[in-house]
Structure formats: C-alpha cells, structure tokens
C-alpha cells in the first residue's frame, strides 16, 4: 500500500512517515501544497494523509483540485475540530477527518478502512482458500496457524487479496508497494513473491507471464 503524507510540520511529517513505513506502507512525503498536489495527481496512491494548513496552497485547495481527476481516498489532518470545518472537509470530498493531536493506532485503523473501501472491500477479514488475512490485526493464518511475514510481504499479500481474482501488473505492484526511492530496484518484487510462496504455498500467488501476478483467480 502506498500512501502520501502532506504535512508542513517537519517533526510530525518525519515521525508519521516512519510509523507508516514500519506498518508496511510505502510512504511518500510532501511538506508544502504544490508538491503535495503534484504527487497526488501523478501517482495512484492508496490513500493520502493531507494536512489542512500548508504553505502556498492549503489542504482544501489541494483536495478540490485532486477531486477533479482522482478518487484517491483522502484523510484530512487538521488542528481545527469545529464541526463547521469537519462538514467543509467532508463536503469538499475528504473521505475521513482526523483532528490533531491524534492517536497513531486510530490513524492507522482509519487508513486501513479507507484503503479497504477504496478497493471495494468492506470486511476486514479476507479469505483465500485456507488462508485468512486479517487486515485489522495485519495477520495471516494458514489452516488456523499464524504465518510470520515481513511488513512488505504482508503488504504484497494484502494488496493482491484486495484485488482478489484480478491480474495485478508488476507496475501496479511497484506503484503501490514501494515509495519513490525504492522503485528502481527491479528484482525486489520477485524476491518478495518467492518468499511468500515459500511461506504460504507455491500455488497461492500465480504468475501471469507478461501480465503480472494473480491471487485466487483461474489458474
């Protein structure tokens, strides 16, 4: 899952990015309005965390412009908790709204819900064969036994599970699983897929040569 954070407070931006990376997300950051808008318009993020007060262009304006072209789930981050602001945010097209100061676990939960809904899944437990993916606990069990995956491996499995039955291209996987700094490592994806097959069984992820990967679809 790839997330964009637009936040001008450097300490907050840094710690948010770090926390989300440790949760297994690919994270891009922007510290001011225009670059944030550019990123959001250029890449297909699974979610955008958008601060309202930003230099040069505020969050409302970014949201308004982004909504002209993209439906990326947006979580607004603001220091204002007056209901007028919340209403404005939701009316402008924000998908959720978190008031500073926030609890990280809550922010993560809201992001997961946003991403799930963005992929058209309402439940937080996905089942593929004997493999159960609990997106809330970020845990995978196979035949009732927990399977230990790295954060990146989990993200890959979750992304494929969210697009269950569809062929996901390598480009899409790169776009959603790796941030701007990692994308150049072209064989990283193959390494992760091979590791996942070792842990969850060889047939779990099928390779469609020339197209990409697929989970649970017709072989």
């Amino acid at each position, binding site marked *: 899952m790839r997330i964009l954070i637009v936040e001008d407070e450097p300490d907050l931006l840094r*710690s948010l990015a770090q926390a989300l990376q440790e949760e297994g997300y690919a994270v891009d950051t922007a510290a001011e309005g225009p670059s944030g808008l550019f990123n959001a318009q250029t890449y297909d993020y699974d979610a955008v965390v958008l601060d309202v*007060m930003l230099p040069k262009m505020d969050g409302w304006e970014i949201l308004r412009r982004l909504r002209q072209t993209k439906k990326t789930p947006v979580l607004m981050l603001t*220091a204002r908790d007056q209901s007028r602001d919340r209403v404005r945010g939701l009316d402008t097209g924000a998908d959720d709204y978190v008031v500073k100061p926030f609890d*990280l676990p809550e922010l993560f939960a809201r992001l997961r819900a946003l991403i799930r809904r963005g992929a058209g899944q309402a439940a937080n437990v996905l089942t593929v064969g004997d493999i159960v993916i609990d997106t809330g606990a970020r845990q995978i069990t196979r035949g009732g036994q927990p399977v230990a995956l790295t954060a990146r491996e989990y993200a890959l499995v979750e992304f494929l599970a969210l697009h269950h039955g569809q062929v996901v291209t390598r480009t899409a996987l790169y776009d959603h699983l790796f941030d701007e700094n990692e994308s150049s490592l072209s064989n990283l994806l193959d390494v992760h897929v091979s590791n996942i097959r070792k842990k969850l069984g060889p047939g779990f992820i099928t390779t469609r040569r020339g197209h990409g990967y697929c989970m649970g679809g017709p072989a």
Partner: protein
Amino acid sequence: MILKSIRWRLQIWYGLVFLAVLTGFGLTAYELERNRQFRNLDAEFQKRMGALSSSMRPPLGPRGPGPDRGGGPDDQFPGGGPTDDRGGGPGDGFPGARPPEDRPFPGPGGQDFQFRLPSSLTNLFGAESNSFYYVIWGRNGAELARSEAAPRDVPPPPPDTGPGGQPPPRMRGPLREFFHATPGGGSLLVGSSIAEDLAGLRVVAWSLAAAGAVVLLLGLTGGWWIATRAMRPVEDISATAVKIAAGDLSQRISAADTDSELGRLAAVLNSTFSRLEAAFAQQRQFTADAAHELRTPIAVMLTQTQTALSRERAADEYRAAVQACQRAAQRMRKLMESLLQLARLDAGQETMKQLPFDLSKLAADCVEMVAPLAEARRVKIQCAVPPTPCLGDPEQISQVLTNLLANAIEFNKPSGQVRLTAETQSSVVKLTVADTGEGIAPEDLPRIFERFYRADKSRSGAAGHTGLGLAISRAIVRAHGGDIQAASPPGAGAAFTVTLPLPHRPSS
C-alpha cells in the same frame, strides 16, 4: 406576587383614582339634580303657601281689627261665630270668593268653624292623595281647617320656630310639609307627598350609578389595555434579557420606536448586548486559537513517542524522537509564555517600568540580536536612530523592536533590506521598521495585529511563530501610551511604525 407587578399596581392606582373621580362626579350630578327638583317642588309649595296665607290676611275695616290694633290672634278672626248672613263685603282675605265661602274666621272659641277653600285656589289643592293639602291651626294649636286630601293625623308644627319665625320644612316619610305662621299666631301647613319625585330621584341615582359603573369598567379595560401596551416593550426587554441570560447572546430587543424612552433603553441595551456578544466571540475565538496552537506540538509529541515506543530502537532513533519532543515542548513553552504575557497585559498587571533609556542604544542592541538571522537570510539592516532619551520599560520595547526586525527579515526577499529609522515629532518619537519584502495584502492589513491572525495561514507550523508577536507588540506599545501601525504600499514592502510618547523635558 401580583401586587409586585407594575402593571397591576398601575391598574389599581388608576382604578382607585378613576373610581374617586367618578364617585365625586356622580354625587355632584345627583346633588345638583336633587336641588333642582326640590327647588321646583319648593316653589310649588311656596306658591300655595303664599296664596293661602295671603287669603288668610285678616280683613281690614270696621268688622275686623286692623293690624294697628295689636296683633292678637283673636283679632284676626273677628266675630264670634259663623256669619253667613253678613255676606256683603268681600273680605280682603278671600278675594273674589263667593258668599258661602266668604265666611269670617271664627273666634278662638269657635267650634263649628268650616273653612272653605276660595275657588281660585281649588285647583291648587286637589282631593287626590298625591295632591297638595293644607292644615290650619289656631293660636292654641287647635286645628281650624284642613283640606280634603290632608292625611288624618298631621302632627302640629313644632313649637320651636326658626329664626325667620317659621320652622323649617319637614319630611314625614314621603310627605314634605311647609309651615307658615299665620298673622294671628296660628300656623299654616302646606304639604304633599313627593313620593313620585323621590322615586324619580332614585331612578336618577341608579342611572348615575349604572352609568358610572359602565364608565368605570370601560375605563379599567382601557387602562388595562394601555398598561399592557405600555408594558409590552418592558416585557420584551425582560424576555430578551432572560434569553440572553440563558446564554443566547444573539438575541436582540425589537425596538421599532427608537424615539420613545423605552425605545432608547432598548437601543442602549442592544448595543450593550452586541458588545457583550463580540467580547464573548473574541474570547471564544482566542481560546479556540490557543487550543489550536497547542494541537500541532502535542500531535508531534504523541506521534513521536508512540512511534519510538512501538518497538526496540537504536539509541540515535530514540535521541531523534526525544529531540523532536523537546522542540515541540519548547514551542508550547513559548506559546504559553506569550499567552501569559498577553493575559497580564490585558489585565494591566504587567507593571510598566518607567526607566530612562536611550532609543538609539536600544535599537542598536536589537539589531545586534537579530544579526545572525539577518546573516542567514542575507538581509542587510540599516539602522538610523538618533540618540533619543525615552522613558519606559526598555526590555519590553526591545521585545517589540526585535519582533518587528525578525518579521522584517523573515518576510523579506533574499538579499533584501531592512531600514530602522526614528523621527521625533513634538512630543512623540516615531520608530519605523521597513522591509523590501512582498508586503502585506490589503485584506490582511487591518487584521495583522489580531491574536493568532496570520497573513500566511501555513506559518502555524513554523517553529517560533505563535501568531501572537504583533498582538503582544501592540499591547506593549499601548501600555506605554503609544501606538503601532502597519502600512504596505504596493510593491514597496511593509513598514511598521511605533509611536512612543517622549518624556517631558525639564524647563528647556
């Protein structure tokens, strides 16, 4: 308590006064009517009395003793008995009377006396029970004559006669009786039942009372209506005040007529409410802004600590997290200090020291203080402040000046300039800090001294900017009896001018 209500008290007073006026009016009207009636009645009585008494005048001439012979009552009625046969001379007492009626009055001892009313007077004394009647007594109180309609037992006149020689008219039930002393020492009574007249007067009295009651009722209703109308604005005011007291500060008294006394009161109250509402709104906004300013540093601390503690970390990661927390804490401390300083300035607790200081030296110190910042931004500071002796708190004036200089550097263009100049005008010194930056947008200019107002909304995140600097500067300058103004001519950067009063110079 109903009697505490102004409307009720008004109504009661009004009702009492109205009742007194009506009663007085009614009594007067009744009395006038009664007097008129009695005057008319009494005139009737007097007419008959006069006619009777004049017909009873003792006849003059040889047969009757004249008045000059001494007024003995016996003399009035000469002749010992009825002298029908004498006929002839028409007595003065009964002019035009026919012989049978023209009987001489009997003497005191006369028993078989019969008095016949002269025909000219018959129409004055009828036979009906409600008509006038007369009774004549002799000197010794013996009844001499009575008319047909006279009641059976008419008491003789009281012996005690009034000053005019006649007892006052008396009332016996519905009978009114007048007395007249006859020349011979007897007395004459003319009476009549005035029951009908009394009944008429009673009708008048009841009519007056009924009319009075109706008028009183109408008056009270009208008074209630007027009192209600007069009290309605007061009730409006009190209802609005109740709503405002309940916390709805947006309520206003509807005062259509602002020229009336209550209208003016309503206008005054409305403007007071408006100022109250504005003050509350400002206070609310200030509190919300202050809380808002605290949110970001707290968010930093929460996120940093939660991330750092989520797993085992290397020492330098912990250090980075703690440093971020420290920065957030410092920011909160600065905000808190600024808020406290503003609160003290607001309350007038910030004691203004009155120390003499030299403005040029103070300006130079401030320039030196911001020099590192200016160097980092490659901004040049020109300081042209002539020595000017001032009086005040040099620390606080330094704070104002440093704040203005720091702003001028920060909002300047790279390699820009900041000019600090001073100009003495009669009793004030004007200190101007001008920069060559982008200036301040016209819509922001009137508001930049407001608390937490930022021309650039994003600068909330920038460390060290609480959004209170200019508000504090203005509060300090005003506490010194001066003022601060901002100007931003298009394309010429921004200029802040601090006006400070100069101390009075001794003698020169």
